[in-house]
């Protein structure tokens, strides 16, 4: 089959056999059709990161793909931040003026943006009200990236009429589904195996990062990469590590971003630092948001990767760890259970003790750990790479265009 370009071809020997040919065939049916993505930021966050990679792929397939950004006032973004929290179940103080600002800014953006496309994908709550400007005969999908399994009813009540106007909604997990009259589709997020966070690294690149953080190979490394917030439970992981240490020598590395705007997060980080000060084998790394290469190297240096969350959206750090062929232990919450097939590609755990037991078990059974890691990598190859994500979008577009 003739390759259409070099961008996609780079994934031919990374994605499962036959994937690229399948993508080209799906793309053939959609050539010349137009697709528009709209979200609220070009920089930062998983959505923007994924669109930066997916949109050029759509174009390479001959789809006229565009990506537009809405602009807004500080009050608008304060409002949508509150929406974001409220849809995830947190309390939020919202005034009539804020709801009005949300409507007004969406109207302004509708007048400014070119919203014409055969299929329009609106990402998250910020631009959802653009649906009022859907043109006759075009298909609009609302892509929700956040956990709305238990939304604050007042905000959901406000959003629901907008969402109901779409031709479909896309969620990341089955538990996020709502009572809606429109079709609700399931599309898992994905990782890009060629990004700095996930690409293969040269041994010297890994060594440079280990040197930077004074990491040596004398003990196996247990690693968790996550923000320092209570839902990621770094303190619980430290407790599990302490249990493990009564049986086996190892080192715990907690790598994550800062928590400057989150008082609860600061409290968690302070507690983590306090514990680390008492044990020289606990290493706390406060990394900048763009430390992708460092995270990649740390994951590749670890013996076991843990994501001991007690509440989680999707938790793509699990797929990142699995892609590096590592055994991953994750809290049995959110998307972690969709990524870890218990006992086959890792272990999900429900307690500090369970986490400690699985770490001990894997440290003492390196062959089992290696097999889990190998199977985890293959499972990720099939289910959580960007090529699968691309196929999902192409399939949905085929469905929307009536090209089944």
């Amino acid at each position: 089959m003739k390759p259409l370009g070099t961008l996609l071809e780079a994934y031919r020997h990374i994605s499962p056999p036959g994937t690229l040919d399948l993508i080209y065939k799906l793309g053939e049916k959609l050539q010349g059709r137009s697709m528009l993505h709209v979200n609220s930021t070009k920089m930062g966050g998983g959505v923007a990161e994924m669109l930066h990679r997916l949109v050029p792929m759509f174009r390479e397939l001959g789809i006229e793909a565009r990506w537009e950004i809405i602009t807004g006032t500080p009050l608008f973004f304060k409002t949508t931040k509150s929406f974001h929290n409220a849809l995830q179940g947190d309390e939020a103080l919202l005034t009539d003026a804020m709801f009005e600002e949300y409507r007004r800014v969406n109207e302004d953006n509708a007048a400014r943006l070119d919203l014409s496309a055969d299929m329009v994908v609106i990402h998250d709550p910020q631009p959802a009200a653009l649906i009022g400007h859907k043109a006759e005969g075009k298909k609009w999908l609302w892509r929700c990236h956040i956990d709305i399994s238990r939304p604050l009813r007042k905000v959901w009540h406000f959003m629901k009429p907008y969402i109901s106007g779409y031709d479909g909604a896309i969620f990341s997990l089955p538990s996020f589904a709502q009572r809606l009259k429109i079709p609700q589709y399931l599309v898992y997020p994905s990782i890009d195996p060629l990004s700095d966070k996930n690409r293969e690294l040269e041994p010297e690149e890994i060594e440079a990062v280990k040197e930077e953080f004074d990491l040596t190979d004398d003990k196996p490394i247990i690693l968790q990469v996550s923000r320092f917030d209570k839902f990621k439970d770094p303190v619980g992981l430290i407790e599990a590590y302490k249990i493990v240490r009564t049986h086996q020598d190892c080192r715990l590395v907690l790598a994550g971003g800062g928590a400057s705007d989150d008082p609860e997060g600061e409290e968690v980080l302070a507690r983590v630092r306090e514990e680390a000060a008492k044990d020289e084998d606990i290493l706390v790394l406060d990394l900048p948001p763009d430390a992708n290469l460092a995270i990649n190297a740390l994951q590749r240096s670890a013996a076991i990767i843990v994501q001991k969350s007690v509440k989680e959206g999707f938790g793509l750090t699990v797929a990142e760890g699995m892609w590096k062929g590592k055994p991953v232990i994750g809290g049995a919450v959110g998307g972690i259970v969709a990524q870890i097939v218990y006992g086959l590609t890792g272990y999900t755990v429900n307690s500090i003790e369970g986490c400690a037991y699985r770490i001990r078990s894997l440290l003492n059974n390196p062959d089992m750990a290696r097999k889990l890691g190998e199977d985890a990598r293959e499972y990720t190859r099939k289910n959580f790479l960007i090529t699968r994500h691309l196929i999902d979008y192409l399939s949905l577009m085929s469905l929307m265009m009536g090209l089944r």
Partner: protein
Amino acid sequence: MPEFQFIGCIEIKELLGQKADNEAQLLEMIEDVHPDSIYYHMHSYFLRHVYLSGPFPNDFANWAAIELRDNVLGEKLANVSVSPEKSLEDIRMDLVETIDKHLSEMRFVAPILRGSPFHFMKSQIVEVPLGTEAQDLSEFIQALQDVHASALYYHIFEARIRVRKGRNDFSIWLDDVLGYAQLAEGIEGIDFYMFSLEGLRLKILDLCRQELGE
């Protein structure tokens, strides 16, 4: 002589917004849910877990065992068989009878304690002709080695159950067009639900190579 044309497929997963919290609710919802949802939870497991065979071959069994911690029901549901002779309504009745009998043996039905509820879904299949063809058995073997795994799903599970051809597409072509009746029978005789798609690929390739004396 008509060639075999490989068709891959993509499964678009649709959330129904309905969930069950225990065995009794699972029973009630299976009684009423759209047949496509029965199909999805009994089959599409193979498309999702293409590389590895999971503990049980359908979602109901895995949920009962893992989330509900009702291993007995999990094992019973794992044995609800799917065959070309059975319609989706037959399968629905088998599931209902299995859960109903299990419930009659339970002293009380507890709500789910720590696991996740069962979320009902259904799927739509987008067919993708792959442009890969085979004229004879050698070409068939060559193509089957490299074709996307979803083609195995399409030609085996979709053909037998959803489209109700009675046999898998490979056996139909090998028998009716090439005259390999015994090979066709051998492939149809595979217990498809005991393998992952990659496992099925290897099993079918093995049978084909034996036929050619390789």
